[in-house]
């Protein structure tokens, strides 16, 4: 059963790649310019890039950690992100007020990479908990056979979390620097600031307990899931509360 799911996931992989490449082939789904520029402004291009980052990280984790089963989650997620990007439109939603420069490009690139790594940490944590449950319950079925070993998933979670948090942090700091230097100061909504700081704090806590308190295994997996859930929930809440706010995501 899981073999077929894995094949379906690989199919979605291909679909997500095809969708992301569609603009290059001249299909009208999006402008070619938007995907050529990593730092495209607007949700569509950013989601598309996020999907690409996920796919690249998935390939990396397959090659380095032989964690092929991660594709069961990353591929549908990447496919879904690209689909959503197409629905939103891959053309830039807005032009940054001070134009594009290296600060801006790095800000978006690192932020998206950070989010992709956090998503990978979330996925590996979910796989860890599934495999943990199977091993504890002494069920030796498809999950036991096809999912990676616990320690490998724990290591993937650790690496993704420890790399993702600094990437996201630097991405945010670059945004602040960009705003101060090129856009005439910070124009951030107080709610965005408060909830952004809260999310950063939660993510920081998950990394802190991993690195400083040496959490591992199930506790670390739960912490990782909490961190990613905080990112997604705060993002969705802000999006719903303030639609159309000018930012890349």
């Amino acid at each position, binding site marked *: 059963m899981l073999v077929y799911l894995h094949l379906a996931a690989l199919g979605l992989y291909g679909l997500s790649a095809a969708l992301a490449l569609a603009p290059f082939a001249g299909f009208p789904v999006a402008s070619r310019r938007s995907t050529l520029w990593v730092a495209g402004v607007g949700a569509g291009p950013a989601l598309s890039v996020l999907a690409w980052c996920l796919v690249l990280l998935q390939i990396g984790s397959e090659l380095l950690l032989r964690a092929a089963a991660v594709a069961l989650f990353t591929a549908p997620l990447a496919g879904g992100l690209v689909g959503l990007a197409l629905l939103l439109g891959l053309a830039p939603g807005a032009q940054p007020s001070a134009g594009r420069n290296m600060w801006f490009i790095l800000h978006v690139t690192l932020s998206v990479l950070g989010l992709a790594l956090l998503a990978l940490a979330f996925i590996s944590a979910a796989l860890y908990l599934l*495999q943990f449950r199977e*091993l*504890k319950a*002494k069920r*030796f079925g498809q999950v*036991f*056979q096809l999912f*990676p*070993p*616990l*320690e*490998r998933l724990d290591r993937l979670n650790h690496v993704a979390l420890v790399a993702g948090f600094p990437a996201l942090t630097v991405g945010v700091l670059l945004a602040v620097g960009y705003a101060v230097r090129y856009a005439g100061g910070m124009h951030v909504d107080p709610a965005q600031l408060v909830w952004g700081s809260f999310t950063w704090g939660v993510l920081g806590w998950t990394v802190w307990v991993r690195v400083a308190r*040496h*959490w*591992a*295994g*199930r*506790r*670390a997996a739960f912490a990782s899931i909490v961190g990613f859930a905080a990112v997604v929930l705060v993002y969705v809440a802000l999006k719903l509360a303030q639609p159309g706010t000018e930012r890349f995501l």
Partner: protein
Amino acid sequence: MSIAVLGVNHRTAPLEVRERFAHALHEVPGALARVLEAGAAGGVLLSTCNRTEFYLAEPQEAVPEAVWTLLGERLSGRGDRGERSAQPYGYAERDRDAVRHLYRVSAGLDSMVLGESQIQGQVREAWETSRPQAGPVLHRLFQSALLVGARVRTETKLGTGTASVPSAAVAVASKIFGELAGRSALILGAGDMAELAASCLVAEGARVTLVANRTYERARAIAEQLGARALTLDEAWSHFADTDIALCSTAAPHAVVTWERVAPAIAGRGGRPLCILDLAVPRDVEPAVGQLENVFLYDVDDLQAVAGQAAAQRRGEIPAAEHIVNEEVERFWAWYGGLAVVPALKEFRERLDAVRAVEVDRALRRFKHLPPEDREQLDQFSKALLNKFLHEPTVALKAAADRGRGYALLEALKELFGLERGDGP
């Protein structure tokens, strides 16, 4: 004459029941003696973690009851003798079916892990332990069973793949740790299974760092072989804080790894997983230990379930293995039938000769006038006549025994002439 097997196995009884029936080697002679007292010419007790079986030669009617009573006492425990019966968990086979059963056991066809090879050694051990009480028929039967097991493993692929309990232990540990290279293992007890599993782990790169046993000397002997440090059991509990894998295989009749003993050490592990492989029957590890965070506890049944998955690939070899078993059953039965023909023919001849002697004596009493030479002639005539009558049946019976059909004819002969019943003329 007959052969029977009575026992319980993994198909008929769960582990909690089987572990009560398990006999240590030193218990075998006493248990066999009790069963043989009920009336049997010989017996072998095969007791492993998966089965406890009494193989009996020429068992009398009271023997099954003796076996179920003996096992029932173990099921009930001391103090309430005989209150619970073992019979609902048991089975019985006779004659050809009993022989076939042993051959299938020895070939690994009846194992929980199809085709596993450890049973071969266990059959040998049972035979050697029971040898003084086995008798010639079971001696031959167990010898042939070992040959059947070897033949099946050589001529089929039933024994290929990693479907044994030790290899399943490695597979489970690998699912927790990924690479086993550099992982540390602690061995509790000095059982053969633990040694086997330890050698499998070492082959994967794990290091056996500690060996603990009730007797320090035995622990040291194994530790020296594996390049590890020897401990007594009481010294081992604190090492649950730092070891990755614990292999338990003591001969203790109750759980030695208890929550109270190891929970404090395990609490200090942080989030690091601990894999405990309990290979002992009765189990060494209290089930509550498995409830501790990040502790993965597997007993023999669990590991056999893992190994059973590999067995699926072996199922294709079953027809070939069964063919060998059936061939060998017929061969043994031919020998066994032939063995029975000689004493039966002797008894048959003696019975008819007695009839002849009585009738000749009666005739000679009527012909008192005959001279001694004629009386002698008459006696010789009756003997020649008897030999003529017996010649064909004797030749036919011996030929049938050579062809492996002697037993059926023998049974007919016994029935027709009332042999072994002592109800002749």
